[in-house]
């Protein structure tokens, strides 16, 4: 699958094959005995856990030690404090997801200025440049994810329908790309559709924001929410208010997968591949530590997940068995409550 988006500075994506580790690289990395720290927005989500698993597996093969995994709890000040503290630990590299834009930009810059290799996941604060401020960005093709979600929803929309777009208020490369791509796809392929955009500040308020948008535009028949956890808040809020609308989103979280499989409001999901993203960022990190040339932006394609392929997609994305509820809905196991 091709990458449809461009990077944060207009870069063309390098495929993950470009940063594959050769036997020589792994041998050299083992000799290097590198130390790496990881700073994530959260370590509680399935997505973060899978990324960490991919990173750990790759670093394990290369005998590269992960000295700390920091959970910033989505808080810019916590991330700044963590990065400043970790600089004192002098790791060879830090892998980070910048949780904000300008608020965390200088803290990331200071990491590189201290001679520590900085690898970014999913987001680049505006103004930071590859090569001088960080080594590379590794992310999903977020533009592609937005177009997958739009195509799913479009199939369920009558001519001239109205759609609510719930975008994330914070400045974040990944969610910006998804929103722009969704809207562009609709504008290009379904110009009859009317889009109503509202920003949400946090996962907890997404449901309230959806209802507020619906109150203002009561002809809305579907929503696009830029990732799955707020999307499920939207689904729950709509259920409580007695609505049954079509919802598409990004990321195959457990709850979203169960809802999709059981013909709930979720009508399609554009899924990232967090384990493979973890592998890709660890490989890029090792190559950078060995002094090899690395691309500015490595992107992984998204998966289009419908109720027809949710079981195998779940296994592919999460590398584990799909939830029992999904298997029951797919009629792959018996429903225990039916007997």
């Amino acid at each position, binding site marked *: 699958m091709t990458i*449809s*988006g*461009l*990077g*944060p*500075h*207009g*870069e*063309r994506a*390098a495929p993950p094959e*470009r940063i594959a580790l050769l036997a020589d690289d792994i041998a050299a990395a083992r000799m290097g005995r590198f130390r790496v720290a990881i700073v994530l927005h959260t370590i509680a989500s399935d997505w973060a856990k899978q990324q960490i698993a991919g990173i750990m597996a790759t670093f394990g093969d290369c005998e590269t030690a992960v000295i700390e995994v920091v959970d910033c709890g989505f808080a810019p000040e916590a991330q700044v404090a963590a990065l400043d503290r970790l600089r004192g630990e002098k790791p060879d590299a830090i892998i980070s997801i910048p949780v904000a*834009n300008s608020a965390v930009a200088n803290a990331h810059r200071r990491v590189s200025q201290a001679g520590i290799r900085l690898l970014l996941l999913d987001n680049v604060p*505006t*103004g930071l*440049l*590859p*090569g*001088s401020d960080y080594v590379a960005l590794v992310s999903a093709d977020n*533009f592609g994810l937005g177009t997958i979600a739009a195509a799913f929803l479009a199939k369920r929309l009558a001519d001239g329908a109205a759609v609510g*777009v719930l*975008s994330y208020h914070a*400045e974040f490369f990944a969610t*910006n*790309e998804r929103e*722009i791509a969704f*809207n*562009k796809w609709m*504008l290009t392929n379904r110009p009859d559709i009317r*889009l109503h*955009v509202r*920003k949400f500040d946090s996962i907890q308020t997404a449901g309230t924001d959806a209802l507020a948008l619906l109150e203002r535009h009561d002809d809305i028949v579907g929503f696009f929410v830029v990732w799955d956890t707020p999307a499920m808040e939207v689904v729950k809020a709509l259920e409580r208010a007695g609505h049954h609308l079509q919802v598409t989103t990004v990321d195959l979280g457990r709850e979203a997968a169960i809802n999709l499989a059981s013909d709930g409001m979720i009508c399609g999901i554009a899924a990232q591949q967090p384990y493979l993203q973890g592998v890709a960022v660890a490989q890029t990190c090792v190559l950078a530590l060995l002094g090899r*040339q690395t*691309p*500015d932006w490595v992107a992984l394609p998204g998966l289009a997940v419908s109720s027809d392929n949710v079981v195998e997609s779940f296994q592919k994305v999460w590398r584990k068995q799909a939830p029992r509820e999904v298997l029951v809905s797919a009629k792959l196991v018996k429903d225990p409550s039916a007997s």
Partner: protein
Amino acid sequence: MVADRLATLSEIGLIVESELGIASGGRAPRLVRFRTDLGCVLVATLDQSALGVGIADLSGRLFTEHHEAIDLGADAASTLQRILALFDWLIAKHAPDMPVWGMAVSVPGPVSEGDEKPFMEKTPSFLPAWEDFPFVETLVDRFGAPVWLRSSIETMTMGERFAGAGQTARNMLFIKVGKRIGAGLIFDGRLYRGAQGASGLIGQMPVQAGDRASTLDALAGSDMIAREGLAAAQSGKSPLLADTLRRGGDVGAIEVSQAAQSGDPASMEILGISGRMIGHSVAMLANMLNPDLIILSGTMAQTNDLLLAAVRETVYGESHPLVTRDLIIAKSQMSSSAGLVGAAMVVVESLFEPGCLKDWIVHGTPLAHPVFLALRTSCATKRASITAEQDRPAIAP
């Protein structure tokens, strides 16, 4: 006198007092600074295959940027609609309550107008397919702010000068390698545009490769790299590119460039030829201009090190020792962001150019500049002739 002027500026709201300065005996001075949040600047970069947009404050600092693939060969109206939609999105996200003070768009070719008057009055000729298309007029009418068009090489040079490797350079040569090869020149700290805004078209310089004589564009640009790469793939001279072709992949200049970086001998040879050809031309410029810094940019330069190495080898070998004594030759790290940052700086420099500033400063906003007010009226009239399709209200992107 100074206190009076500052009091006036403060009253108009253009400056604010900031922190205390360092005392040199007596009371510490109170510093004042210009308010960079009074308005915002919208910027876009247009090239053959990509559109970039951004929004900046009045210091030229970008709040955010976005890049996406486009086909500039498509009709001008659809490209304009895309820019309008993305500008609307940027305003809604970052500056819903901030007036737009100016816009700048970089375009693939030279822009011959723009220096004579404070504001651009009509769309200059920059691409055959955009001839007579009211691009500038629509933007002025839609967002109520002045527009500047510059060539992409000019905005990228400005971006590199203000936010990239050129921040400390007084004299810089910026070389962009793509389908066309162009040069931007920072001369004594300022962008040199030439008499018609067409300086730096070095791709037109005649060069010779073996028994072939043509322009630098034709013999060293990305079309040559793609063509030679495809031939190497088809003949089997490059096993790596042949494999790409066998798997149904495209072999273009980027693939050749990446293959060269991976050590593919045939691709390395192609990049080496291109780099040495460019190096010959750059060495001539370096001997004439004696720059502090030469920056190589464009996808070809940024996806591999071989082009840079070949240019360095040639320039160092063919230049006077004094010219190369402290000369730095590096590749840009800013990618397409350079064009956006540079476009923002075009707006900021133009608005605050003393000749323009004196006519609006008492009004507190350049949007009240008498010449611009007249321009808005004429743009609105011209825009009335735009098709209904172009008049459709922009939707969030």
